[in-house]
């Protein structure tokens, strides 16, 4: 039988064996059997010399072609088998829960506060701050609260056990006074913070709660500006569909004063027309006089509201005490 006729059958046999190799070891064995130093193909190549000069080029070409083909098949099979070897014994169950790297959650009150601040900052407000332990001057007198106003009562306000009648601020408005005493207008601040009222804790009261307050003082500030800003902030906060209503009201440190009600799909769902959400007004000229601003030159407005209330409305929370218990099942919901 001629050498030329042996090439093709041998190649076919080698290909079949490579392709059927079940694992990498079998593949290596098959490789040795054909293309290794003692392999059948290697042996065939060695016989090339026995051919005649005329036969040799054609046979050499055939053998080389076959060899390339075998090597390609070998590489292909090898990567197939390597992939197979890398797979786990059992296929991965992608429905199993992953190994979590848990993130903590910001307290819902922090989240709401941050959202409010973000809205105000968009329109040029900066955050200001002041002490929680206050004196009567900053908390009441300078804010035009009459000397015998019930808010000052031991019934309603916490006082400290110190000689100089220090108290826990009942509203963030005390910061208005501190800021205005320190800087000349224009003023454009927002003040978040803890405040204190002497209420027993129940579903809607906690002796500690949070307020946020905005103050803007400049030349030619109008009631229209107050309305525009309040509407902007509450639409940002409560949704574009929110309607805002202003109602005349009374606060000692603003005149005119208003309460703010809002209306949106959420309020309707609660079966109400309007929900009260904030108080506001034009800064009372007496307050300006108290901080040595000339009320003939400067006008301004202030507004404030409770953060818990916003969070309760927004998330449908029905008990204010949940905010201060820090139950992780509660915290992780927000």
């Amino acid at each position, binding site marked *: 039988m001629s050498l030329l006729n042996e090439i093709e059958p041998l190649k076919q046999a080698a290909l079949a064996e490579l392709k059927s190799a079940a694992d990498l070891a079998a593949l290596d064995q098959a490789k040795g059997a054909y293309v290794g130093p003692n392999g059948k193909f290697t042996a065939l190549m060695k016989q090339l010399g026995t051919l005649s000069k005329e036969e040799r080029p054609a046979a050499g070409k055939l053998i080389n072609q076959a060899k390339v083909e075998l090597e390609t098949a070998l590489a292909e099979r090898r990567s197939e088998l390597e992939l197979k070897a890398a797979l786990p014994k059992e296929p991965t169950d992608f429905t199993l*829960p992953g190994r979590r790297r848990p993130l903590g959650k910001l307290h819902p009150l922090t989240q709401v506060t941050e959202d409010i601040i973000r809205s105000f900052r968009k329109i040029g*407000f900066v*955050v200001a701050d002041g002490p929680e332990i206050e004196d009567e001057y900053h908390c009441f007198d300078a804010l035009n609260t009459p000397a015998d106003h019930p808010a000052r009562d031991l019934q309603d306000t916490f*006082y400290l056990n110190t000689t100089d009648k220090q108290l826990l601020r009942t509203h963030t408005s005390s910061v208005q006074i501190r800021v205005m005493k320190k*800087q000349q207008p224009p003023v454009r601040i927002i003040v978040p913070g*803890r405040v204190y009222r002497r209420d027993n804790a129940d579903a809607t009261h906690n002796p500690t709660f949070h307020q946020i307050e905005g103050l803007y003082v400049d030349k030619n500030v109008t*009631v229209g500006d107050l309305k525009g800003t309040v509407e902007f902030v509450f639409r940002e906060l409560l949704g574009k569909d929110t309607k805002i209503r202003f109602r005349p009201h009374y606060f000692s440190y603003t005149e005119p004063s208003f309460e703010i009600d809002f209306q949106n799909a959420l309020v309707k769902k609660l079966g109400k027309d309007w929900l009260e959400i904030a108080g506001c007004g034009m800064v009372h000229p007496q307050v300006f006089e108290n901080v040595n601003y000339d009320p003939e030159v400067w006008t301004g407005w202030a507004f404030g509201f409770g953060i818990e209330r916003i969070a309760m409305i927004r998330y449908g929370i029905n008990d204010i005490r949940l905010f201060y218990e820090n139950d*992780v099942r509660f915290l992780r919901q927000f």
Partner: protein
Amino acid sequence: MKVTLNWLKQYVDFDWSPEELTERLTMLGLEVEGVEKVSGEFEGVVVAQVITKDKHPNADKLSLCRVNDGKGERQIVCGAQNFNAGDKVPLVLPGATLPPKAGEPPFTIKVGKIRGVESHGMLCSPQELGLPDDVDGLLILPADAQVGQPFAEHLGRSGSDVVYDLEITPNRPDWNSVIGIAREISAVTGNPLKIPAIELSQTSAEPISNFVDVRIEDTELCPRYTARLVRGVKVGPSPAWLRAALEKVGLRSINNVVDVTNFVMLEIGQPLHAFDYSLLSKPGDRQDACPTIVIRRAAEGEKFTTLDAKEHRLNNQILLIADETKGIALAGIMGGQNSEINDKTADVLIESAYFNPQNVRATSKRLEIRTDSSYRFERGADVGICDWASRRAAQLIVETAGGQILESSIDAYPNPVQPKELSLRHAKTCELLGIPLVPSQQVDFLQKLGLEILVRNGDEFCTVRIPTFRVDLKREIDLIEEIVRLYGIDKVPSTAPRGAIGSNPFDKVHDEIADARRILVGLGLNEAQGQTLISDSAARLTSADEQIVALANPLSSDMNVMRPSLMPGLLESLRHNLNRKNTDVALFELGRVFINDNGKPKEERRLAIALTGLRNPTFWSGTDRDAKSDIYDLKGALEEFLEHFGLRGMSYNRRTESTSLFLESATINLGKLPFGEIGQLSPALAKRYDLRDAVFLAELNFDLLIARRNTGKSFKTLPAFPSVRRDVAMLVPETVNHDAVLSVVKQTKPANLENVELFDVFRGKNIPEGQKSLAYAFTYRSPEKTLTDVEVSAAHEKLVSGFRDQLQAVVRDA
């Protein structure tokens, strides 16, 4: 304050529906807290007047009438004969139902044809209305009956009505009266306010000075006191209309005289008091003299029994109404039992006075008596209305209880209050509202509220006189408020945010706090918010008594001091969670604490972290899946936080002893500066807080962190040459800690040392007692070239001999 729709309508005309009135009042600043509909008798029956009476075209016994029902004319067919054109009669409107007769179904009146002619309602007899009068024909009403008035009202019976519960803001005491609210409606509608005219009939010309005298000893606390006498009354039950009026707004009817004083108080806002004149004592020595009402301060310790039979001990801050021998009323608050109106009262002395609001408030608080009267005086009554209210009461007493009014009265008013005058610059209104509002309209609003215009200076300004009932109008801005209220805040257009950009140093701090919070939640900690007010025993867990800021008027012993640390609050939160089977808890809080600094309370921001339970969330595989958090989890979180927040080089110095809070703990310092502490909660405390797993706590002074924070960032070229790592494992005595190793490294300063990493601490097998094995990896790298083995060894050897010499380390072969 409660008012009813029908009562309001007695003083001003308006045709708003009950719902519209709610809306209108709300937008005037009178918040409606509740609306209650009261159904009444004779629904759909009104007083009507017959205009014409003609024969029915198709029936001899019927007449065809045109009738005015108060709103318009209607045609009625009627079978009765006993009336004429001009008569006033009850008319049942179509849709209304006649009172049912026994055994018969109710009969509803409809528009229908009677003998071919339409009839729009029915004129009725008393029998048809279920009234006892026996008349053949229609019930003919008195000529002064008011056409259009609901019939029930005409009878003084309770007609259907709507009761409004209003929240009155403290600046508007004038709204604590029906007329005060009607005045607002009058201002909005432009319809006149109808204050009842008082004509005293049944008067006696005998001078009041024959009966009583008044002496005000403290005109500051009582600037005005009027006294009027009605003689010969008959005390008894009130008529139905009076009783109904009071009961609808929640007052109990007592008797006709007392009810009248209450009615007038509700009507005009002036609290009145009625004394039984016969119970006033004359001066002891002169039985022929008349009694004197003395308005004086009580004597220290004076006893007085109010008409609710409670005895009070008074002091000299309390204003007392007295006769020459005894107190008879707490001024403006409550009368005395010794002079109250009773069944036998014949002569009634009506007190109508003005008392100082602060004083009434103080007394009311001190004695814990709150009455409708004290409520009104506290907020500021109308000093100008005393006499009107007194006459009104006298008139109604005579109407309901009979008797005779003395024409003259006493009005002790030594320094009459001069009504205030205020000016309004019209341009100022426009400036503040941001809209042009013509001066004439501004003036019109003020006028409608009862302010008298004294001066009008063209378009520039006007000057107005403030009526005494408007105690809230004190300066120009208050007039502007009135204008915007009547104009309607909803009509002031909103303007988009504009103007200066704000600035405040705290703005940056706010961001730093926000940064910290974000890093901490990134570390898997949940943010907590604790109570600021905690118990003194919880505060003492972290602080000495003298550091704790206490409240003067705490609500309870659970909340009697301000937190001196965030840790007690976190422990409380852990307890809350553990009790609810949340066993794995990682919390942080960033908030203020309060420390007594030599008598001065100091506020400080702190950051605290608490860890307990499993280190990682439950997982279904792995050897250390059940690992609990330990102190190094907490320290790791702290280190990671501090690094990201911009603080390096903190040292942790172990306290040699346990503390009341911690089993083991360390202080955290930066250089010499104390920043906080970290440790494991004492097991005794853990038990007290129901905590089962070990609890780890840390607290840092956040204000200091902000002050010392370094957020500067700069780029360093990435290394271009390879590094060489050399490991060292060594046995050292237990007393040698990681810091000691690092300080040797620092001292030795081996060339090209890039990084030191501790990768193993081992005690036990093959390690002698009192020793431990530490394994470190040291990484060497030059920024300029690839280091040779020789270069690295030279540096590293120096380090290793440092360990040998300074730490008594036995270095094991690498």
